[in-house]
């Protein structure tokens, strides 16, 4: 067990090392070399290796440079914009799981019947949906035509909420304004459409993975034994088959983070959501390479860390891997 954690830890270090090599390489390619701070500028010389170590030293001190748009520290800005993205992606993942798992299980139970075929073809439609178009269609129908949903942003402009945690749902509840509860409801309404848009592709993927993992699990010998023992049907499905099917599902959940970040870039543009996606796109349009460098580094480290964490988790929950030497 410790050897697995050690191995994953080494992979993490190696991953972060290649990442910094890559971002360092990019920073060398910039039209004018990337300067993280005044102190960093003084250390730059002809030796690439020395420059690389200085670069790493300044990064680890939290000197990620100043945004060329706002003049603020890039790392500070990342933490200002990140909660909005984290809130949206977390809710989108929950949405995809809450719908995807039961749908996948239901499809697996009715394998090759019409219900299964309907679910599988719907997931293919969801998978083929260009989400920028899907977002615009939902806005056109629910916000502009029916008027039952807000068009964009995180909360109505009439509410004045002090950012404490950066998570709108928590901040509205913490607020001591008389309209705190109304603001919470309003923030929830603003979340509905972006969640659907961002969650559609993960929902399609989760449904398919759950279906195929459950089909594999249900056709195995231990399920036949459980049936022969006369266990109740629900118990076979939920505690025997699903527990074993969870391993591929957890792996796929971990892989979704990359898909979700690609999705937030587009979703945040459609819904004017003040998160990482909007921040980075603004940086591209204004060619603010310092912000872009910081954003790339932060997001890629996050993806690498989450992937390794999921790998460790899979090893922890899977007894077959846990006891392997």
């Amino acid at each position: 067990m410790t050897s697995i954690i050690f191995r994953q830890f080494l992979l993490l270090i190696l991953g972060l090392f290649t990442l910094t090599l890559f971002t360092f390489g990019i920073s060398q390619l910039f039209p004018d070399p990337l300067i993280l701070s005044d102190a960093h500028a003084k250390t730059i010389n002809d030796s690439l290796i020395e420059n690389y170590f200085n670069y790493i030293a300044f990064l680890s001190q939290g000197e990620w440079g100043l945004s060329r748009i706002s003049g603020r520290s890039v790392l500070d800005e990342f933490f200002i914009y990140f909660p909005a993205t984290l809130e949206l992606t977390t809710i989108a993942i929950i949405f995809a799981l809450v719908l995807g798992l039961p749908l996948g299980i239901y499809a697996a139970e009715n394998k090759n019947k019409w219900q299964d075929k309907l679910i599988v073809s719907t997931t293919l439609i969801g998978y083929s949906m260009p989400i920028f178009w899907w977002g615009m269609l939902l806005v056109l129908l629910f916000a502009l035509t029916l008027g039952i949903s807000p068009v964009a942003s995180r909360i109505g402009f009439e509410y004045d909420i002090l950012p404490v945690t950066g998570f709108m749902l928590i901040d509205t509840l913490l607020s001591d304004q008389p309209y705190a509860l109304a603001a919470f409801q309003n923030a929830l309404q603003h979340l509905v459409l972006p969640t659907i848009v961002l969650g559609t592709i993960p929902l399609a993927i989760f449904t398919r993975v759950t279906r195929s993992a459950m089909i594999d699990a249900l056709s195995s010998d231990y399920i036949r034994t459980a049936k022969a023992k006369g266990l109740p049907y629900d118990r076979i499905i939920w505690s025997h088959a699903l527990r074993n099917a969870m391993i591929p599902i957890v792996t796929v959940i971990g892989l979704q983070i990359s898909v979700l970040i690609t999705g937030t870039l587009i979703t945040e543009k459609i819904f004017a959501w003040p998160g990482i996606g909007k921040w980075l796109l603004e940086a591209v349009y204004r060619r603010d390479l310092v912000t872009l460098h910081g954003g790339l580094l932060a997001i890629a480290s996050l993806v690498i860390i989450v992937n390794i964490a999921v790998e460790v988790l899979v090893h922890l929950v899977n007894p077959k891997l846990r006891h392997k030497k």
Partner: protein
Amino acid sequence: MIHSPQFYQQSVIPSTVSRWTNNFLKNKLALSAFVLLALIFLVALFAPWIAPYDPAIQFENTKLPPAWYDDGMARHLLGTDDLGRDLFSRLVHGARLSLKLAIFVVVIASSIGMLLGSLSALSNVWIDQIIMRVMDLILALPSLLLAIVIVALIGPGLPNAIYAVAIVLIPHFVLITRNAIKAELGKEYVTAMMLDGATKVRLFTHSILPNILPSVIVQITLAFSTAVLEIAALGFLGLGAQAPYPEWGTILSESHAYITIAPWTVALPGLAIFFTLLSINLVGEGLRDAMELEQ
């Protein structure tokens, strides 16, 4: 009995390819998706002859609804956009542009990816490790983010966006090729070939390559649909094809502002992207089932 044409017991064993074709033809959904995809390809191929007008010509009637509406006009089948350009012509030319770019991207990504994958599987541990770590890194970067960074570095525009999408697609080909080759190398028929004294090159071209082809073909269809989507997404974000180009994503981003006044200029280009992606994905799915590959 003696004159019966079937005197000896005969059975025809179908070749692998004909077995695949038969499997694919039995799958009605995949077959209809294939027909749709073929139609889209034909439209793309003969775009200049199918499109009634030049995609850049501006007419007097701006924001004209499609012909089936009361105030539509028959000469503009799908209406016109905010600048009075014929939407049908733009979409037809858009199909040509999107498919051409996507094919180009997939050709680049698959050839580089397969080359690196074979190199990784067949050469020593060090080269393998270096290639795999770099691919891990590219896989860890969200595809659109990587594309955006590349575009930001070398400037927006069609060619740069194309390179960005190609780079993003390479790691999948490397992984598929490498893993498939490693799996084949362990099999007995390869050992038999080695014992027969086959050279390394012959081993690779005659035994390994034909056997990894199914996985690669499925990956090509997946990559093709990703390429169409990512090129459109970059166009939508204003980083891919620039304004006058009739690229589907660019058309969508231009008409985003007119969504309430001219909803068809948003609905129709999206529908074109959607049906292209759906048919590619269905064909890919059908191919995977037909070649009896499990993922």
